[in-house]
Structure formats: structure tokens, C-alpha cells
């Protein structure tokens, strides 16, 4: 953990009975030697790549100087050459905040390394960290109040949620071995090389942009469908339910997400999308609607967004009138699918970005045979 001559000085000082704080090395690499499992997981996380997103970079480039500094408060909090985003010290040497929002994190780089156990080690001073275990730490960055459409409210949603009432924190789902399942048994192993076996947390922080997003999002929603034939049309009621009891669906950077309901008809001729195609005026969407004076706008210059997300553990029923036949073939079955794309293609196009290579994920589906 300590490098070269610094280690020598540390032991010298220890021998003199006046052990100083170890040098405040802020790089993840300095932690990886003793905590390789956590370092590998963190390297796969969006936390350690918070500036990699081309969407983020394009939006940041359009922001004012003051707003860029605002963005960087969370996206480059690590501030170590060669490493981006949030790193080990961002959480493990956080002392508190000046408000649970807008990157008002207070780092205590001269203080001990906070952990869930605070076990003593020769590598660094240690202390148990209540702040580390709290949702307040996460909320310091995952609660954003503007400018424009940059309104992200996961922490305040969680604060009022059933999950908060039952004591489930952000880490309960996003650091679970099985993302989104706080009840899943945690992996056991040493938290540091040579240490005792413990229940470990997953430092991949799986979220909607992580490579394992499907594991998390697959638990997030359910659909129910009721179909009533009505002459030449079908009256279709689809109920969308957010199974997540901790925050809305979608949450976080909703202005960038595309989450929509698609209804497909199965006929003798094949499968046809009846509702939810990109140009369909009846398209049901759950991502934020970002406009300026009623016209589509970039989030960097928008009015406060229209929130269409499902609240935590909430449901919404939509009714669609759809044709009972397609091209003369009667509809044999209807399938409703809730689909998710991490970047809304319309936003990417407006920013001059190529289409996101990541395809849509199907969060939930239900089929009704006629």
C-alpha cells in the first residue's frame, strides 16, 4: 500500500512511537495490491469510468465553464492521472458532505481509511465507516438538482421508498452478488490479501450502463395485459409495474434513457409492431421528456423535464386501441414488451453522436393469445 521510501519512513516513525498518517496516495493501483478482488470489480464499474461515456463528454462540451465544474464534481472526483471517475478514496476516505446532493462530498484524505469493519492494518489507519455504509454517501452524487434537465433524484426517491423503510440501502442492491437482490447470499472471502473470510460486497456497482445490466434490469419490471375485442379493433390495457421498491423506473439520468412500451401482433403473416415504434405518436415512454418552450431540446438548455417514470413499487395502466387484423390477417396473439436503451437515440443524434452499439434490453414481456 505504501510505496518505496514512504514505507521506510512509516516504519521509522512507527519505531519512534509517532506513527503518522500514511501518505495520501489517491490512486486505485495503490489499493489493488491488498484488495485485488475489489479493484478488479471497481475497474469494471461505471464509477471508475465516469468520464468515458461519449454522451457525457458531448454534453459536458456544451456546458458553460461553471457547469463543467459542476459535472466534474462527481465525474472526476478521483482526480488521479491515468484514472478517471470515482475511485477507492472517493468512498473510503469520505468524511461526510455539505448536503446530500450536487457533489458536495467532503474527502478526509489525511484521515483513516473507512471500511465496514475498520480492522487494523499496518498499511493504513483504519476506522469503521458509518457514512460509507449509508445511502447518504451515494446520494451526494446520485442526487442532482439542475441545471436544466440535469435533475437526478435517486436518493430522494429512495428516502421516501418502501426499501428505505425496510432498511435496504443503495449498496444492498447495487453491491449485491446478484444485482438487484438484497436477499441474495453474499460471496465470502478475504476482504484483503491474507485476511479473514468475510461477506463481501461487489464493487462493480452494477447499474443500467454496466455490462451486467441485464441481471439488474431483469428484476426491475413486470407487465400485465388485458385485451377486449371491440369489432375491428382490440382494446388493450397494459399495466406496467416497477418491481423496484427503492427508486423510480427509470431513475438517475432519466433524460438520457429510452424506456418504452412496445406491443407486437402475431398473425399468420408474422410479427408486426402495432404500438411503440419510434415514430408512433401513441408511443408510451417512461424516460424524461426534455423540451424548451414545448419543443424538443438538449438537456443542457432545457426547461425542467417532464417526469414520466414509474415511482418505486408503482404501477401505471395505459389503454391502446389497436387493429384486430394486420394486412387482412387476424391477430392471433399480442405481446407487450417493456424495452430499455441506455442512451436515447434521439439525444445521441441531436449531439451528433453515432448510434449506441448497445442494443435494447427487454425488461419485461407478457403475451395474450386471442
Amino acid at each position, binding site marked *: 500500500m505504501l510505496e518505496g521510501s514512504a514505507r521506510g519512513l512509516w516504519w521509522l516513525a512507527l519505531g519512534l512511537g509517532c506513527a503518522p498518517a500514511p501518505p495520501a496516495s489517491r490512486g486505485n493501483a495503490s489499493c489493488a495490491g491488498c484488495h485485488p478482488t475489489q479493484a478488479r470489480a471497481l475497474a469494471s464499474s461505471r464509477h471508475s469510468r465516469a468520464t468515458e461515456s461519449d454522451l457525457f463528454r458531448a454534453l459536458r462540451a456544451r456546458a458553460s465553464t461553471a457547469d463543467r465544474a459542476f459535472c466534474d464534481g462527481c465525474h472526476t472526483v478521483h482526480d488521479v492521472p491515468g484514472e478517471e471517475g470515482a475511485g477507492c478514496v472517493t468512498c473510503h476516505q469520505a468524511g*461526510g*458532505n*455539505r*448536503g446530500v446532493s450536487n457533489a*458536495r462530498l*467532503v474527502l*478526509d484524505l489525511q*484521515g*483513516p481509511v473507512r471500511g465496514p469493519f475498520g480492522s487494523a492494518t499496518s498499511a493504513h489507519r483504519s476506522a469503521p465507516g458509518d457514512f460509507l455504509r449509508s445511502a447518504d454517501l451515494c446520494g451526494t452524487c446520485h442526487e442532482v438538482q439542475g441545471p436544466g434537465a440535469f435533475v437526478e433524484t435517486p436518493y430522494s426517491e429512495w428516502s421516501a421508498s418502501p426499501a428505505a423503510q425496510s432498511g435496504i440501502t443503495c449498496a444492498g442492491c447495487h453491491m449485491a452478488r446478484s444485482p438487484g437482490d438484497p436477499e441474495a447470499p453474499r460471496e465470502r472471502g478475504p476482504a484483503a490479501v491474507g485476511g479473514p473470510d468475510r461477506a463481501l460486497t461487489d464493487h462493480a456497482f452494477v447499474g443500467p450502463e454496466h455490462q451486467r445490466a441485464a441481471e439488474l434490469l431483469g428484476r426491475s419490471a413486470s407487465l400485465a395485459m388485458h385485451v377486449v375485442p371491440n369489432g375491428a379493433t382490440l382494446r388493450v390495457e397494459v399495466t406496467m409495474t416497477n418491481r423496484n421498491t427503492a427508486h423510480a423506473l427509470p431513475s438517475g439520468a432519466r433524460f438520457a434513457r429510452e424506456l418504452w412500451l412496445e406491443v407486437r401482433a402475431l398473425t399468420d403473416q408474422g410479427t408486426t409492431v402495432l404500438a411503440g415504434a419510434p415514430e408512433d405518436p401513441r408511443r408510451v415512454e417512461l424516460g424524461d421528456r426534455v423540451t424548451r418552450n414545448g419543443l424538443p431540446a438538449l438537456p443542457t438548455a432545457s426547461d425542467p423535464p417532464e417526469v414520466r417514470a414509474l415511482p418505486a413499487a408503482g404501477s401505471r395502466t395505459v389503454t391502446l386501441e389497436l387493429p384486430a387484423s394486420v394486412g387482412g390477417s387476424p391477430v392471433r396473439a399480442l405481446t407487450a414488451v417493456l424495452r430499455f436503451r441506455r442512451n436515447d437515440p434521439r439525444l445521441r443524434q441531436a449531439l451528433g453522436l453515432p448510434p449506441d452499439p448497445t442494443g435494447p434490453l427487454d425488461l419485461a414481456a407478457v403475451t395474450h393469445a386471442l
Partner: protein
Amino acid sequence: MTPHRALLLALPAALSLLPSLARAQTRDGGWRQGHPLALGARASVRAGDYALVGLGGHLRVQPHRLVTLELFADHFVGTLNDALRHDHEVGGIVQLNVLRGDSWALYPLLGACATLAFVHSPQSGGPTVNDIHFGVRVGAGGQVSLGRGFGLQAQVEALGYLGHPFQVYRFTAQTAPDLALYGLGQLTTALNYSF
């Protein structure tokens, strides 16, 4: 022992010394009327919208027998939602010595002050926030000679402050964006020496 508890213990100890000083009063009253300058050490307790105890000092100037100007500096400590709060205050008051004897005086007072207030999060390594509060104060007090140039002074004041509220809870310490008014009552005792 926390600093404000130490002050709470020190205050009665200082007051217990006063009777012996009073017995040492000389026939000239020790009040030294006409001496225009005095220095004093003081202890205060304030309570209301928040509570603090403090120690400080003052310089008293008497340009006229009916008027005393007092410039003071006080340091207060206390807790706010388990966080340590310490205030550092400077200000001045005007006393009108409307009732006055050879070795005593009673007076109404009016003053103003400015306070630099700090709050330290209860979390180790947590945030510290500060703000400047401006206040006005009215009250009444009295002073009595203890002899040999020493005098005992006590006064009660109503204080009104304008400043940003501190918000402290669990891991957070911050100042709210909107100004707020605070009301407090303060009891101050002081030991003065006239030159």
C-alpha cells in the same frame, strides 16, 4: 470532558470567588468613579433558539458619568444536533447609568455584534461549515464595587441574530441558503478592574 461542560464548571467556580473579593472592599468604594477605563473578564450563558456558554473579555470606556461604552469579544461553545458549535463574537454596547450610587450602578443597554459561527460535523473528518451572524442586543445590568479597583458586573440581554441556519444531521453539515432570525437570552457576569 467537552469544552462547554468545562465552562459550565468554571463559571460557578469563578462566581464563588466574588464574596471574598467583596469583603476586601475599601472605604473609598473601590468603584473608582471618574476612572474612565476598565478591563473585564466575563462568562456568559445564552439560550433560546440554540444554547451556548462562553468566556470573553471587554474594555469599558466611560466618557461621561451617565454613559459607558463597552467593547467586548466572546468565545462560545455548545452542541448542535451532536455537532460541535463554536461562535466567536465581537461587538459593543452603550450603557446609560441612570441609577447610580457611590459604589453601584444600574443601567439599560443597547448594542450590536457580529459572530463568526462554526459547526463541525459529528463525524470524524466530516465537514465544517461557518457563517457570519449579525445581531442586536438590548438589556439591563448592574455593577457593584468590590474594592481595590475591582467591580462585579451582571447583565441580562435579549439578542436577535440574522444569519444562515446551520443544518446538521448524521453525515451532513451545511448552511441553508435563506437567512433566518434567531432569538436568544443571555446572562453575563464579569469581573472588572478600573484603571
